[in-house]
């Protein structure tokens, strides 16, 4: 406590940095992608996609600010859709009218048949600074893993809970029996199956 000037200097530095920060306004939630190779790194790290189980957990938990955007054409969306999803077909989403419906404040789950279209949308939207994730495997995987219960989960935290809640989704998806989506194609992905690791579980 003898060197009293040191804490004061520290406080002054902190106030200076906090003051400049206060003038900088609202942050972007996402780090901008600066080089082309970073796209590959992000996909390798699995930051581009979420597993059906994670999405089901988000739906059940009613995660604030989460929206499920289905980029398939309207007629396919009408035949089968994820609970609480909304339809913005791909061509619309890439236009101004579609983009204006998104928010830079929440996260978007992109759904298509098998994940391919949604992945293309992901590159565009992520590049523009929207937080979004591809539903890994698309609607096919949703039917397979959640509705038919064939979940092979990379995120064990969720499996049990979702298993118990399957019936809830089955109620929602009662129509699929009559109009089943095309059977899931064997996934020829070269990247390791995995998907975005759920954020680290909480401290303490």
């Amino acid at each position, binding site marked *: *406590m003898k060197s009293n000037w*040191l*804490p004061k200097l*520290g406080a002054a530095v902190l106030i200076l940095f906090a003051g400049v920060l206060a003038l900088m306004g609202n942050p972007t939630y996402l780090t901008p992608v600066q080089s082309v190779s970073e796209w590959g790194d992000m996909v390798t790290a699995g930051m581009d996609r979420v597993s059906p189980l994670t999405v089901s957990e988000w739906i059940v938990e009613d995660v604030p600010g989460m929206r499920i955007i289905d980029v398939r054409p309207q007629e396919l969306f009408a035949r089968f859709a994820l609970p609480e999803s909304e339809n913005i077909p791909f061509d619309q989403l890439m236009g101004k009218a579609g983009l204006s419906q998104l928010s830079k404040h929440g996260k978007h789950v992109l759904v298509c048949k098998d994940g391919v279209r949604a992945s293309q949308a992901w590159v565009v939207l992520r590049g523009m600074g929207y937080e979004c994730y591809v539903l890994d495997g698309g609607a096919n995987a949703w039917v397979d893993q959640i509705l038919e219960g064939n979940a092979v*989960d990379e995120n*064990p*935290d*969720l*499996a*049990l*809970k979702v298993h*118990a809640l399957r019936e809830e989704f089955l109620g929602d998806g009662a129509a699929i029996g009559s109009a089943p989506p095309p059977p899931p194609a064997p996934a020829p992905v070269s990247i390791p199956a995995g998907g975005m690791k759920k*954020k*680290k*579980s*909480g*401290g*303490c």
Partner: protein
Amino acid sequence: MRKIESKPYWSPYAAGLGLGIVLLLSYMLMGTGLGASGAFARGLYSVMHLFAPENMEAHSYMGKYFANGANPLNNSLVFVVIGVFAGGLISGVLSGRFKKTVEKGPNIRTSGRFIMAFAGGTLMGFAARLARGCTSGQALSGGATLALGSWAFMFAVFAGGFAAAYFVRRQWQ
């Protein structure tokens, strides 16, 4: 050993600066804050799992730690807490503060202090699970990231502490 005077504590600002940098590094490297009670829970659950594996895996609250054959100890928080023991021991030995003692005021017997420590620990273990974090996981980590609920938690902790302190003053004073 006992005759060696232990060195004084650091200035709280110096220790706080060090702690703040460690906390920031934790976010930069691991993407998560610091924590302690979570590791205790994981340790407890894996011991319970030895005795009743089926019951644990089927439990609605604890089951998720074992879903699909997961091992609750395979988590970075567990390693953080092992590190905390080591870091505390290193600092304690270097500063001559490693000593078998009981922390208490002069007006309470050792057995009384043990009972109080156990009771207070029980309350905190319960509360840390309820609040989804303790002083490190909520107040420190959530405080730095400006999480709304963590700031509410922090004020609640100080309120609870000050309210209860009067009734247990004989333990310390």
